[in-house]
């Protein structure tokens, strides 16, 4: 957990609206866990004000520019342009300066009892699963179920396959892979491997459906959540989700940035997550 001022090594479009940014980050590789994230900001321009959170896609090393120099350790993120902050990131070039705070939060736990590892992801939610797959593959075979509305939403299949992951694609409109929700495939797999461990990241409705299935089958599930974040370190309380057993009298909030972004499913209050009920007053801080 450090804040470094560093340099962009590359920033390239990999699919329409999706970019991969490599950032020089010495010492990062050995500190980061799959599922952890960084808070990122371009240096120099005052805007946007707040850093933006991004999952760590991977770490690695690039050859040095000259013989004799050490390799360049980098950290890589994969991001989708959705608003002001990511639009500005798109305009950054090799050599531009950025500030990176991280690695932050709690990543995936991989000490599983079972040999069966099932990852479920959609859209940009595949990002944290990539490093996770790499780690799990050292011990287990890994299956990845990718879901999306249409073929354009399906990313990175080749990358995961190259790692050695068995991938299953499904789209709502059937334009790629199976037609139907990704949860259909999940049910099939869990029927075959009832003691599998499931790891999911993606849009909230998908996570809820995955949770419902895993809960009813008592399958161990870890989910990675997103939230608006200001500080990334548990100080502002902007990113909270309700933990299991939460009530107004005994508020059991969890910070997505600190206690998450990866949670064991049973730590969360899924009913309140879905409803996002206002229990407090309408005060300002």
């Amino acid at each position, binding site marked *: 957990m450090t804040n470094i001022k560093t340099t962009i090594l590359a920033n390239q479009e990999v699919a329409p609206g999706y970019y991969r940014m490599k950032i020089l980050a010495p010492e990062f590789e050995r500190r980061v866990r799959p599922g952890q994230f960084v808070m990122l900001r371009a240096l120099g321009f005052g*805007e946007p*004000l707040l850093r933006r959170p991004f999952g760590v896609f991977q770490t690695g090393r690039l050859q040095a520019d000259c013989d004799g120099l050490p390799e360049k350790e980098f950290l890589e993120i994969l991001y989708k342009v959705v608003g002001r902050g990511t639009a500005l990131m798109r305009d950054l070039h090799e050599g531009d300066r950025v500030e990176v705070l991280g690695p932050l939060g709690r990543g995936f736990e991989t000490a599983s009892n079972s040999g069966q590892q099932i990852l479920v992801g959609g859209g940009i939610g595949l990002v944290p699963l990539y490093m996770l797959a790499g780690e799990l593959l050292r011990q287990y075979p890994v299956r990845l179920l990718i879901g999306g509305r249409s073929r354009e939403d399906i990313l990175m299949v080749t990358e995961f396959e190259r790692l050695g992951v068995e991938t299953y694609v499904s789209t709502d409109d059937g334009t790629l892979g199976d037609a139907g929700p990704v949860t259909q495939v999940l049910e099939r797999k869990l029927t075959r491997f009832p003691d599998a461990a499931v790891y999911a990241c993606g849009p909230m409705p998908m996570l809820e459906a995955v949770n419902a299935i895993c809960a009813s089958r008592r399958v161990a599930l870890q989910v990675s959540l997103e939230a608006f974040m*200001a*500080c990334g370190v548990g100080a502002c309380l902007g990113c909270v989700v309700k933990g299991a057993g939460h009530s107004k009298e005994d508020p059991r909030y969890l910070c997505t940035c600190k206690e998450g972004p990866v949670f064991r499913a049973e730590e969360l209050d899924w009913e309140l997550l879905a409803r996002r009920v206002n229990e407090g007053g309408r005060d*300002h801080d």
Partner: protein
Amino acid sequence: MTNPSLPENAMEAGPDLSVSLAGLQLKNPVMPASGTFGYGEEYSPYMDLGRLGAVVTKGLSLRPKAGNRTPRIAETHGGMLNAIGLQNVGLEAFCQEKMPFLRQIATPVIVNFFGNSQEEYVEVARQIDQIDGVAAAELNISCPNVKHGGIVFGTDPAAAAAVVGGVREVLNKPLIVKLTPNVTDITVIARAVEDAGADAICCINTLTGMAVDIHSRRPQLANGTGGLSGPAVKPIALRMVYQVARAVKLPVIGVGGIVTAEDALEFLIAGASAVQVGTANFLDPAAMIAIIDGLDRFCRQEQIAKLADLIGTLRC
């Protein structure tokens, strides 16, 4: 730039950054703004907390408070809106879980607190007074009085005076009163608070603002409105600090939009005896250390032996 392992006495050769404030002697005038620094521990991986002038906690209430639903934050140009809803662990858990850590850091601990009624304010103050290791209390009067139609204590001089007076009776520790900027004339409130027994004034809290999602046609914050903070509000905060510093005899803590040492210097020159840094902690977790180092550098460059001599030197 920052060197947390620098021994305390290495500063002695350099300029004297210390300030005194409501009976507290601070090694420098820089401290976090309540609610932006958690309970201190959250930022301890990024800095030596002992280098700060003081640490100010998240606002505490008698019992744990759940706060508002999410989204609780939204970004605006040069600022951010928050509607955390004063979520906090409550005084009891604070004493048991947070104080042991805070007692170990080598700087005064200031506890920010609030209540939803005059009685609650006074009761919280009574309990804070008993906490060993708390150097001072900071009273947040930007809360609605639920017993009186929800009018915000800090927007009415009589209500502000009443709550400060009540707290003063039970609190022996130094009392800092933090004002809301959402008023016509902040000097009226400042004087009321001074007369009621405050030892120092802190201004400003956040300005009430709003942001709208044009696609869903809903407010971006679940709460509807929220508090605006960050560099965007600095000119307003600075003006209010200037006004208050001239209106009262009490020392003033300046807060609102401070990001750099230059920002902090503007507040000191305008009359603040110390400064708090809020939103900037989110932009750079070591912002306060950079500010302290920047104050030191400025004093060296301008040959100022004692930073406190700069306070209120604005020439108008």
